[in-house]
């Protein structure tokens, strides 16, 4: 009889993996994800923004000379031209009007007239240029020799380099990359736990509705059948994740060198992130933990989904009951957002140890670097509670699969667990 579980798992697994829909999504989704990853880089390379000409009417007569344009924005001084005629002139994209009091009171006296709104970038650029120009004029007014140079020497400009001391080799962590890794891992957890948990539920409801269940339980103990379903579907999920990770890994290996050699390499932040991405050890450990927490979270939640599936006659009746597992999953994602902002806080620690939220919250922290013992405590708590949860849900399942008719309430369902 011990092999009955294996036979059930094999059927669940093979019936799903052989489906065309599974094969297609498994192969196509990574392709689209890769496309989304590459898209910004491609847009950066192929989009050359058209340059804009900005007429400057400078009533102070001192500021315009300090304005420096760049590739995108060109300043043209037209002091002679009155404002009205300049506004009528279509050859300018915008007119920058600098009033006579601009040096003492720039907020009040400077105006930018444009056809429609300018792009955010150009807006910020013009503001920056104006600030510098007015600063320069004000400095000159102090009449102190070399003041500009002194100020430049005083100015401090730095980016903070974070080093993770928990790792054997000191390695630099890009917190931006960690942030996105956390988000990505959480999204994967959220999607997979919900989708595959509900798959378990739906297929139990179907088995119950078309009464195959009655035939199957005459050969397999209900608990084994439930476990077989959960494990079989779980294996499908793991298969999909592994294929996706492999395909994405291949894509990354191909894209990272391509991107880092291009414009992006100029920015040290991006370069650091890319270097980290190509650090396979970092990625592998991340994927490893993701798998551990996915399997844990999936087993934990899918057994609740299984119990719900056993209790109802059709999928419509299930929708209300599914809030029971869905709510804590969503809560876990929301809590992760808080955890992301402060990955080492006590709140973050406890959220990542309590099984209901731990898969999501711990996965949100791991990319930032977490002490190994904390991860192990979280894993132990999660897997311990899985046993408890599976045991409880199996008791409900055993009774639920033979209950037809009235939609049961949560209280009734919990009462079933006490049946002999």
């Amino acid at each position, binding site marked *: 009889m011990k092999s009955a579980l294996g036979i059930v798992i094999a059927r669940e697994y093979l019936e799903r993996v052989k489906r065309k829909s599974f094969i297609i999504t498994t192969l196509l989704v990574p392709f689209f994800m890769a496309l989304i990853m590459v898209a910004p880089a491609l847009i950066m390379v192929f989009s050359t923004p058209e340059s804009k000409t900005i007429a400057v009417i400078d009533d102070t007569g001192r500021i315009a000379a300090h304005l420096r344009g760049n590739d995108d924005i060109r300043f043209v001084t037209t002091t002679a031209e009155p404002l009205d005629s300049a506004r009528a002139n279509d050859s300018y994209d915008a007119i920058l009007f600098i009033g006579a009091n601009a040096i003492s009171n720039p907020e009040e006296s400077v105006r930018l007239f444009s056809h429609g709104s300018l792009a955010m970038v150009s807006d910020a650029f013009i503001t920056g240029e104006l600030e510098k120009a007015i600063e320069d004029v004000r400095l000159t007014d102090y009449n102190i020799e070399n003041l500009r140079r002194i100020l430049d020497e005083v100015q401090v400009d730095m980016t903070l380099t974070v080093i993770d001391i928990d790792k054997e080799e000191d390695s630099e962590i890009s917190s931006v990359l960690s942030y996105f890794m956390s988000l990505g891992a959480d999204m994967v957890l959220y999607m997979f736990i919900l989708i595959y948990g509900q798959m378990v539920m739906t297929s139990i409801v179907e088995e119950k509705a078309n009464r195959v269940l*009655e035939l199957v339980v005459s050969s397999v103990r209900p608990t084994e059948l439930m476990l077989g379903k959960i494990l079989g579907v779980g294996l499908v999920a793991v298969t999909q994740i592994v294929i996706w990770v492999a395909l994405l890994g291949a894509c990354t290996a191909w894209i990272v060198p391509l991107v880092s050699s291009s414009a992006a390499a100029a920015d040290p932040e991006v370069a650091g992130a890319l270097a980290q991405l190509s650090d396979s050890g970092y990625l592998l450990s991340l994927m490893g933990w993701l798998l551990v927490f996915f399997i844990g979270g999936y087993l934990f939640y899918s057994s609740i989904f299984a119990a719900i599936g056993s209790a109802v006659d059709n999928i419509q009746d299930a929708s209300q009951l599914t809030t029971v597992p869905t709510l804590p999953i969503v809560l876990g994602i929301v809590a992760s957002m808080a955890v992301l902002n402060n990955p080492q806080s006590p709140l973050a620690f406890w959220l990542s140890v309590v099984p209901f939220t731990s898969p999501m919250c711990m996965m949100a922290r791991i990319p930032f670097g977490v002490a190994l013992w904390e991860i192990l405590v979280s894993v132990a708590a999660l897997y311990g509670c899985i046993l408890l949860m599976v045991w409880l849900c199996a008791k409900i399942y055993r009774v639920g699969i033979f209950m037809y008719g009235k939609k049961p309430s949560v209280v009734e369902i919990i009462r079933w667990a006490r049946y002999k």
Partner: protein
Amino acid sequence: MDYIISAENIVKDFTGHRALDDVTVRVPRGKVYGLLGPNGAGKTTLIRIINHITAPDSGTVTFDGHTMTADDVVSIGYLPEERGLYKKMKVGDQALFFARLKGLSRKEAEASLRSWFERLEISDWWNKKVEELSKGMAQKVQFIVTVLHRPRLLIFDEPFSGFDPINAGILKREILRLRDEGATVIFSTHNMASVEELCDEITLINKSHNILSGSLREVRERFADNRYELAFTGDPSALLAADGFQVSLGPVNTDGFATADVRLASPADVRAFLARANEAVEINAFRAVLPTMDDIFINAVEQSNMSNPETTES
């Protein structure tokens, strides 16, 4: 007697409802045992307890001389009343799946499935998906997977529903063949004609209680209400004039004789009645009429409802 399975003093409660109340059923080896009762009487719950699918609140189940364990389930083949198959799976794959669950190796299962498929003339369905089959076709597949592993105890719950008379006949033949090969059959149905045809022993469950048990013959004799059929030639008016006896004319029987339906107060009156009848008409035949299972079912259930009017919710 030698019982393959006996369930003693079974009690099973569900929320606010007692499904089985101190029910005892003993199934003799090598017989076809009818488990009868109105809808909601508790038959299916009893079958599930026998099958080790649910546990009783109290009471014991003994299988083949020992307390039943989960491992005994492989010795049972159970065809439930409400039954289905995986719609998207191919018939052959599905049959293999069920056969392997019962502990057969893939090779044994396939060989024996092929021969069963041939015997029931469904070989060309092997690669069809279940959703393409009619209800009756699916029932045949379910029947095969129930009996394939040669279980010592077979439990059929309404096995003939959804079958045309020809296929029902094939199934009856197969069930009796399995019994003759040594299997014990528990047979649950509402179709009393098939009970008379197949069963050696019966138990009638009503409202969670066992209200009637025994061999088919014994039960029918117990419910015999001293009815007799007389076939005769001659003037019926003289026969009808016989006082002290309830006589009514029946239809002409297959041999062309007129018949009369006779009800006597007790079997001891047979001689007296025959003496009177002999004077009135020429007697061709005289036989006791045993009640049909239909009559017994209705009678027994009504009696039990009357003597036990506080209705348990069903």
